């Protein structure tokens, strides 16, 4: 008996989508609400605060991390496009580059956090630091999640390509959708926390 997961490659007649595509978008919709709630919290905290610190964060490091994440979105979309162009070795190269960029982002974040901790700037010190660590910490967890998924497709998940290249290509597309979303969140986090 054929026990394949339905609609991984062919589109469902009613939705016109693969199940995975609809699934990842619904997940991203829930993610919008998760980060939206925290952005809303940020607005309440900031409006209610008698004063708000300016220039507390390392803007050059934040800018570099912004550039790194945008670069990783570029390599991610190229990892998918390479599969569409049937270039396996380029796909590997771009996917590994995406993970490396994600790791560099986290290393920078580690140095930033370490500098805060060293000067006693813990979440409990101020409202600004509390929401800063909450937002960037949650975003950092999303980076970790992305690294785990991409690591799977570089490692054991890669053998699906030989069995069903189209299904594998779609999985990389969904991973990319998630990854671009994580980049998109940072595009808003960076000015809100570092520059304003």
């Amino acid at each position, binding site marked *: 008996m054929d026990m394949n997961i339905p609609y991984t490659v062919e589109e469902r007649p009613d*939705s*016109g*989508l693969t199940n995975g*595509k*609809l699934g990842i*978008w*619904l997940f991203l*919709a829930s993610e*919008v*609400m998760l980060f*939206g*709630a925290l*952005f*809303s919290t940020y*607005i*309440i905290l900031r*409006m209610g605060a*008698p*004063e708000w610190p300016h220039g507390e964060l390392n*803007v050059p490091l934040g*800018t570099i991390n*912004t*550039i790194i994440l*945008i*670069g990783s*979105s*570029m390599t*991610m*979309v*190229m990892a998918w*496009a390479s599969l*569409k*162009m*049937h270039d396996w070795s380029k796909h590997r190269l771009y996917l590994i580059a995406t993970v490396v960029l994600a790791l560099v982002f986290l290393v920078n974040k580690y140095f930033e956090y370490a500098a805060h901790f060293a000067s006693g700037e813990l979440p409990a010190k101020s409202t600004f630091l509390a929401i800063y660590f909450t937002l960037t910490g949650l975003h950092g967890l999303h980076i970790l999640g992305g690294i785990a998924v991409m690591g799977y497709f570089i490692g054991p998940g890669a053998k699906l390509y030989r069995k069903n290249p189209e299904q594998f290509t779609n999985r990389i597309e969904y991973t*990319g*959708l998630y990854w*671009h*979303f994580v*980049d*998109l969140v940072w*595009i*808003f986090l*960076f*000015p*809100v926390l570092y*520059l*304003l």
Partner: protein
Amino acid sequence: MHSDPESIRKSVRSYIAVFVLLMIFTVITVAVSRFHFGVPIAITVALIIASIKGSMVATVFMHLSYERKWIYGALILTGLGFLILMSVPSFTMMDHIGTPIHVEAPASAHGGH
């Protein structure tokens, strides 16, 4: 949907264009923040630039410029939910139950933090 290698090659050109634009906008955001406008202007400018960048990522990298209507439907609902979340702060500010409204605090009391 585009699937043939030739149309993918065309999309790659738009990915590179968006990548370059995102870099330029990042530099602009940081440069503008050095001018020290008043807070309302600074927030407006920064959020407009971030929204432009965000919509470029969504339409090109996330392929929203050509997607099925179920995805658009889900996103319209998400947008509505997001708007409600963003208006929660103003509801909070309008809610004066338990908050003294017209308290004339002495001027010296403000610097006490």
